[in-house]
């Protein structure tokens, strides 16, 4: 009797394991990833997210702009950022695999888990309000600190930086079903390099902490001097050369 139950349980487990391996094959992951061991909970989590994601994408509007004969399969590499789709609970339904390039985080790990688990504690409120105040055709924007395994440890040069986090500029758009949010994320340029290349169309100004201009290169002089200063840009406040409606934004950023 005991043996019968035991072999029954064993048989059931075998059947289950077979279905798990079938499920693993169906997961939309590159072979390089799916060949590695993915635990069963992760498989189920990914499968659920995948099914949920396709419930959104099979909505009637899908055929909107689908008349192209050509479309590249590496468009994510063309972008300077990545995408996230979250459901109404804030769980990640989709996250571009390119997140690993920007943050070192893994698609497999994040899919199906709450996105706020990856946001800096102090930025959660900002994120949730941006998500909630999003309207159709009215994207919300904010800057967030998101966990990253690519940041260097805090050093004396970056006293105020948060170690282990990277700043993303995000734009949140409401999905076709208003319970989803499409989030596009663009990383901020990180001053890892000690030098920045300047294109011929850019100019450089250096200001003091009071944003008073102390240096302007030739291009800046050419572009700004005639408009904003009769003789010398030096000593001109940066606040006086910006659009007045932006002064509050700059003030906040300078603080």
């Amino acid at each position, binding site marked *: 009797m005991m043996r019968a139950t035991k072999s029954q349980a064993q048989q059931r487990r075998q059947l289950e394991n077979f279905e798990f391996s079938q499920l693993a094959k169906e997961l939309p992951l590159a072979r390089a990833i799916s060949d590695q061991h993915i635990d069963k909970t992760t498989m189920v989590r990914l499968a*659920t997210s995948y099914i949920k994601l396709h419930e959104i994408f099979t909505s009637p509007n899908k055929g909107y702009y689908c008349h192209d004969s050509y479309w590249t399969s590496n*468009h*994510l590499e063309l972008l300077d950022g990545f995408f996230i789709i979250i459901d109404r609970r804030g769980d990640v339904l989709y996250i571009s695999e390119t997140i690993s390039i920007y943050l070192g985080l893994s698609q497999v790990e994040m899919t199906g888990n709450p996105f706020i688990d990856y946001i800096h504690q102090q930025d959660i409120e900002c994120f*949730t309000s941006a998500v909630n105040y999003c309207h159709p055709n009215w*994207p919300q924007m904010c800057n967030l600190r998101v966990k990253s395994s690519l940041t260097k440890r805090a050093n004396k040069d970056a006293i105020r930086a948060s170690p282990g986090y990277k700043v993303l500029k995000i734009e949140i758009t409401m999905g076709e079903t208003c319970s989803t949010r499409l989030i596009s994320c663009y990383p901020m340029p990180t001053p890892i390099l*000690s030098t920045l290349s300047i294109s011929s169309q850019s100019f450089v100004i250096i200001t003091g902490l009071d944003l*008073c201009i102390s240096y302007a290169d030739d291009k800046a002089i050419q572009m700004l001097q005639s408009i904003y200063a009769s003789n010398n840009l030096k000593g001109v406040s940066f606040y006086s050369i910006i659009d007045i409606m932006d002064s509050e934004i700059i003030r906040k950023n300078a603080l």
Partner: protein
Amino acid sequence: MAQDVFMDPWQTATSFSMEDEDLGMPSGKYARMDDEMGGENKERFARENHSEIERRRRNKMTHYINELAEMVPQCAALGRKPDKLTILRMAVTHMKAIRGHAVHDETSYKPSFLSDQELKHLILEAANGFLFVVCCQTGRVLYVADSIVPVLNLKQEDWLHRNLNELIHPDDQEKIRDQLCGSEVSVNKVLDLKSGSVKREGTSSRVHMSCRRGFICRMRLGNLEPLHRLRNRRPLFQHAGQNYVVMHCTGYIKNAPPQGIDAPSSSCLVAIARLQVASMPICADPTSTSQFAVRVSEDGKMTFIDCKVTDLIGLNVDQLIGRYWWNLAHPADEKTLQDAFVALLSDQPMRLQIRVRTATDYAPCTISAYKFMNPYSEQFEYVVATHQIVTSTEEWNPTAAVPPQQPQQQVPNNNAPFDTSDYSAAYAVNNGNTWQQWADAPGSSTSGGF
């Protein structure tokens, strides 16, 4: 905790009941205990620790399996809760169905959560972007995605086989050429972030630029009328009667046209252009159409005026810049505004209802202003003044009944912090032309208006 904050305001009805403690990673509690306990205890705790982990794992699995069962239509159709094996089988069948539906061509298939078409849709919806391919030698557009339509209000045919130069702002053409030719010309200056100095980089130090490209340019908008995506959120540039919007382009240079594009073999730029969206409404927002902002310097002169002023009161920015702020007011209100400005400089907040000049008449207006201080040096920078033109006459309630005065009867006051002589001089110079209308506008004609 934080999860509640997120869920509450957004959606109400969810069948979500997940015990956080059971699903989170094993807390550090047990790990820490291990270090503190002696040999026998340690073993016991290790065993408990292990069974605890196992319990959490099982709970987590049950939760995910139940969720999966909810998502698979065949399971939901059963009417009873199926066992784990059935759920898994049905999930596999369902996933196969989705995948089969999503895959269009097997050749370029790469497993991913979203198909190419779905990603194109996502790029359009979330980033207002579209893909395009341009030949580097000729600047000819080899391909553009149909998702250009809602972004630029242009049809695919408007771009295809055209020269990119015709599609972008004339001032950006030189920049685009630099980006396409792949030379080092555009990047010969370098900013050293440590010393803060700008250096010219020797041309020999870097032989070639990487194939990666990222630039900003202005692209021409079409006039397909009903489509106007994000029209209040994108900065517009005008040139020769055409509207241009700011686009971010990112991509790379390829040595040959991508497969599927019929073009002579030459290097080309494959890129996604996405619309630069402002964090605030740019213009014509329902709440701010009747508003314009003015920057006032310490001596009371206007140094910046929102260009919306032209639409609102019919006066040009050039006519106004350099004039005293109170010149904008009805002659009878000039003194009120000037006094309010003096009070504002001594830290009194300002909210005022007066009449302002328009090209032909006067309009009631609510002015609110504040002193903008440099946040670092705490020095006065300028005054930011928002002018709200009152359209409904009921809202109009002048703060003080100002007796009508002679318009140009400005009494020079030596105690005033302003150079009033300068003011009258400026007035005299302009009196001959456009400002004539102001001087001529009879004060009495306005009274009927309000």
